[in-house]
């Protein structure tokens, strides 16, 4: 596969605060990638750096083997930023035409209008008088104006109602079929799971997971094997069991945290440990994810 985005050991420091801490990844052509993580994890900063709007403090970023700020790159990317701003005093159709004039290769005006789903009447309105959801739709059309190969969406569905959200993901689906590369940030696990083929999980400026949604889910969920000990069992002994990552005691029960419950179970039996009432808990993904989010909120 042809890699079109390369990040190499990228860090970004804002006034002593490290927003992004030594991340590396590459994205291939045609991939749909979700950058998932709680607020403040460095998702937006990373996206801004890929777009060339921020310079990394360390490391290098390349798009199409070029620096993000090159014209060559800009003609091939489109983006929808978190804060959708609209130029004042211009009608919707004028804004669309203006953006089409920037690119050497463009989608036709009609195609762009189709994407927004605006009516003739709405096209004649001043862009700054549109509602929040309509501005997003316009923003999406503007991102598409240059028929880009790579699309960046920063928190694309925040503040959208259910219908607009659905419309948005339908559009993304269509782009996927056209072979576009799409990168979006989100803090909704569900969205990442539904849409992306690959999830890059951010936490406190670092990448803590990178893989298919399924991999990420496995990584996030804590599976446990729990039991009541009939005799005293030493912690060290339990931690030495194969595949046990961690353990804790709650209400007199021992919980072994693992990714391979079967192996742990087998070990418990074969070692003939004095345990009873064994239970396996697959763990709930949402709980684990929420925990990850909350940890951040408290900090």
């Amino acid at each position, binding site marked *: 596969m042809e890699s079109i985005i390369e990040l190499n050991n990228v860090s970004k420091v804002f006034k002593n605060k490290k927003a992004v801490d030594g991340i590396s990844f590459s994205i291939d052509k045609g991939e749909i990638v979700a950058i998932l993580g709680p607020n403040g994890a460095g998702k937006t900063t990373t996206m801004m750096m890929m*777009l*060339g*709007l*921020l310079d990394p403090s360390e490391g290098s970023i390349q798009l199409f083997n070029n620096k993000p700020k090159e*014209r060559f790159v*800009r*003609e091939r*990317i*489109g*983006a929808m*930023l978190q*804060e959708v*701003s*609209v*130029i*004042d*005093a*211009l009608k919707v159709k*004028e804004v669309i*035409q*203006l*953006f089409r*004039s*920037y*690119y*050497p290769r463009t989608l036709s005006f009609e195609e762009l209008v189709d994407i927004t789903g605006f009516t003739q009447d709405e096209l004649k309105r001043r862009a700054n008088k549109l509602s929040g959801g309509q501005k997003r739709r316009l923003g999406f059309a503007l991102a598409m104006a*240059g028929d880009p190969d790579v699309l960046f969406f920063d928190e694309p569905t925040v503040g959208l109602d259910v219908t607009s959200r659905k419309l948005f993901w339908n559009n993304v689906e269509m782009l996927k079929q056209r072979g576009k590369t799409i990168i979006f940030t989100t803090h909704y696990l569900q969205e990442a799971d539904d849409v992306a083929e690959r999830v890059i999980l951010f936490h406190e400026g670092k990448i803590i997971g990178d893989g298919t949604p399924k991999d990420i889910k496995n990584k996030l969920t804590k599976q446990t094997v729990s039991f009541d000990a009939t005799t005293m069992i030493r912690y060290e002994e339990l931690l030495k069991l194969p595949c046990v990552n961690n353990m804790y005691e709650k209400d007199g029960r021992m919980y072994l945290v693992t990714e391979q419950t079967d192996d742990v179970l087998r070990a418990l039996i074969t070692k003939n440990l004095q345990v009873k009432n064994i239970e396996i808990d697959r763990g709930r993904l949402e709980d684990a994810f929420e925990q990850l989010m909350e940890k951040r909120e408290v900090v």
Partner: protein
Amino acid sequence: MQCKIEVLRILRNPYYVFWSLFMPIVFYVVFTRIFNSALEDQQEWQAHYLMSMSAFSVMGSAIMTLGIRLVEERTQGWSMFMRITPLSDTAYFFAKMVGQTVIHTFSIVVIFTAGALINGVSLTAFEWLMCGLWLLFGSLPFLAIGTLVGTMKRVDTASGISNMFYMVLALLGGMWMPLEIMPDFVQTIGKWLPSYHFGSGAWSIVRGNTPDWTNFILLIGYLVLFVLLSGYIRRKQEVAV
């Protein structure tokens, strides 16, 4: 395209229409038709004041419309969005300048026409043309002030400061009333302001003279000063990010 859009945006801005077209014409009427008794040479005063008002208008749109718009675009994240497009910063900037100049030409034509209609100000075609060109040339340092205003962080501060700046420049530069009738110290300050030299060039032309070389020197001097200053601030801001 970008130029055309900039022009459209300014024309649709009510502040522009009010401050740069309506107010100068109102002032013009007030000062030439209502308080016009004590002057010896009416014709000359009317032409003189017409130039003052055109200069006032151009100066206003250069400082305020441009400056405030730049701040707005930045605070609303628009200029950031523009940086993702293939349109280069330079092209964007030049489009803005060209747009402003087109607007200035438009203002000048409107106000000149108003002058000709209201007071029958008659100059030779050459004089009209030269005045117009002078006003366009003289607008450059004010555009630079506009970009300086444009580096401010908040729209409120920018509009407050640019308003004050504008009024002080207009008053002390002798645009509302001739500098000669002001107190001495005001005259001394006024003679160093870009607005005085801006007006003064056009005032010379309507009297059949050419603008003084000090007008050129000072305007160009201010242009260089403000361009350097706003360039410096811009760079400093970029580093801060």
